[in-house]
């Protein structure tokens, strides 16, 4: 759906984007992550043709944007962090203007249907300048959906919204994805990305340092896994024996629970259950501690790791 090949963007002597090769598959929700200033918006602007790349290629629907500019742009809906609306227009007038601009047929029906979906139909005749941040964001979403695009590009779509607003937009994104739309979403709200993305790409200092499913990124980052055990009648000798098992790296006690660090090459929970049973302990709970996207993100960005080369990024 979107493919960038060796994409570069330089501003004077600063390289904002370096050798970017990302790939967004049709029908997926792709989370595009990166710290502030990593180059996420610059990348989106290059994909949309608003900023020209210094080098490299952007392919959308397997075509160069300028080979069929209008037809390709018609298949893309964009929602930015700030909507920059014409505040002297009502919501209906604004959407009607964009319908005319894009050549949308049956505009009255389309606008009515979309405004109902975002619960703004009753406010359609209010000036956009009087809308709250969340409502403006919804209008941006409606604008992006007017052409019923195949691809939705969302640049920090939930930034600055309250929890209700975030949930409403999340539901909207998921609904659109279920309808077959591909979603490319940049965000710094990691929990949101983790919740809805099929795959993520992490951009750090202008370079794509990871691109995979969450599961695989976590696997690549962890050489060990933490398993939490709540055990009764587990004596010191049994603890020592457990610690000496070949797949166990360490054992510590934390708030009355045992935290066992085991190798990440396979799931060792069955082995642990069997060992505790054979040593006479009573296991009440066993839980694998999952690495969150936030942990993965911080590990990658703070340590300058690239999951493509398994080496630190050389500046």
């Amino acid at each position, binding site marked *: 759906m979107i493919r960038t090949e060796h994409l570069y963007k330089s501003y004077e002597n600063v390289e904002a984007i370096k050798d970017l090769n990302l790939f967004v598959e049709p029908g997926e929700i792709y989370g595009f992550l990166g710290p502030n200033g990593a180059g996420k918006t610059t990348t989106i*602007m290059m994909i949309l043709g608003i900023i020209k790349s210094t080098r490299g290629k952007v392919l959308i629907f397997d075509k160069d944007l300028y080979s069929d500019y209008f037809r390709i742009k018609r298949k893309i809906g964009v929602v930015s962090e700030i909507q920059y609306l014409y505040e002297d227009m009502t919501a209906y007038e604004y959407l009607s203007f964009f319908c005319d601009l894009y050549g949308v047929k049956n505009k009255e029906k389309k606008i009515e249907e979309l405004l109902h979906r975002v619960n703004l139909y009753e406010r359609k005749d209010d000036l956009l300048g009087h809308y709250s941040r969340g409502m403006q964001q919804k209008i941006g979403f409606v604008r992006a959906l007017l052409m019923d695009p195949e691809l939705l590009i969302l640049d920090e779509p939930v930034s600055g919204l309250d929890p209700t607003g975030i949930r409403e937009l999340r539901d909207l994104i998921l609904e659109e994805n279920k309808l077959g739309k591909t979603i490319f979403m940049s965000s710094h709200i990691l929990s949101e990305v983790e919740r809805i993305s099929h795959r993520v790409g992490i951009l750090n200092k202008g370079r794509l340092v990871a691109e995979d499913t969450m599961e695989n990124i976590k696997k690549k980052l962890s050489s060990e896994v933490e398993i939490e055990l709540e055990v009764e009648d587990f004596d010191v000798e049994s603890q020592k024996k457990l610690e000496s098992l070949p797949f166990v790296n360490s054992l510590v006690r934390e708030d009355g629970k045992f935290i066992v660090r085991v190798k990440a090459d396979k799931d060792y929970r069955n082995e642990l259950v069997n060992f505790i049973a054979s040593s006479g302990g009573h296991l009440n709970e066993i839980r694998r501690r999952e690495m969150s996207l936030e942990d993965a993100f911080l590990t990658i960005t703070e340590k300058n790791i690239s999951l493509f080369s398994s080496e630190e990024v050389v500046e």
Partner: protein
Amino acid sequence: MNSLAYRWHAIRAIIKREARSSFFGLGLYIAATIACFVASFIFNSYINTVQGNNIMVMTSPLNNPLFYAVIVAALYTAISSSTALSREKDKGTLEILFYGPVDYTSIILAEFLEDLVSFLIIMTLVTLYFVYTAITTNLGFSITYLYTIILAVFLAASMSSFGLWLSSLTTRIRTSVLLFILIMGGFLGIQFLEGYILTLKPENLSLSMIYIMGIVSNVLRIIKWASPFNYLTNGINAVALGSTSLYLENMIGSLIYTVVILTLTVYTLKWKGVKKP
């Protein structure tokens, strides 16, 4: 739909939106009022001159006031167009337009055509005023009035294209206005300087001074082709002199100037970008 159809949709929608904004705004009516006021003032001075000198016959007494009204309307067009793109960039709305199937040519053509629509609205209001003046004073219109109005559209086109080009260079409304004042001031200064040089008598100047004046005069003549004022003043002179060849020459000159400057504007906007600063 093909590219032309997409462009046409975009152009029509933007013109509609901008025209609505102009129609419900004050700028257009203020410009029309100033144009009528200036025309009244000129007309009044003209009548007083006629009366003071006991002149009995006047040809086309409404011409001169009309010329000044055209100058005011064309100036409004230039000022309005010089902020058109920078205002949209400043507000971030230009970037939003480019998220969809809209390109640089569509945006610039739409803004340009909307400027012409605004100019025609002003000229319609001015014409209503002239009709009223003609009825109340019993002074008739001549065919020159129609010639002036037709030529004025071409002159407004060159003013608008120049304003749009200035607007494509900047990202803030204030910078656009300052740049406009600076460049227009420069162009007017050049025209004034050229006029001054022509009044100097060669017999009062040294040889080296004559040589320098010759070079300066030629440089100024080249520079002034870049000024939309040149087409405005030459066009008005052509109508005043009743010279058909000069009239057509100015019309064609304005047209070529407009096309060249609009093309330059497309490339400048591409180069400078549409992102909010």
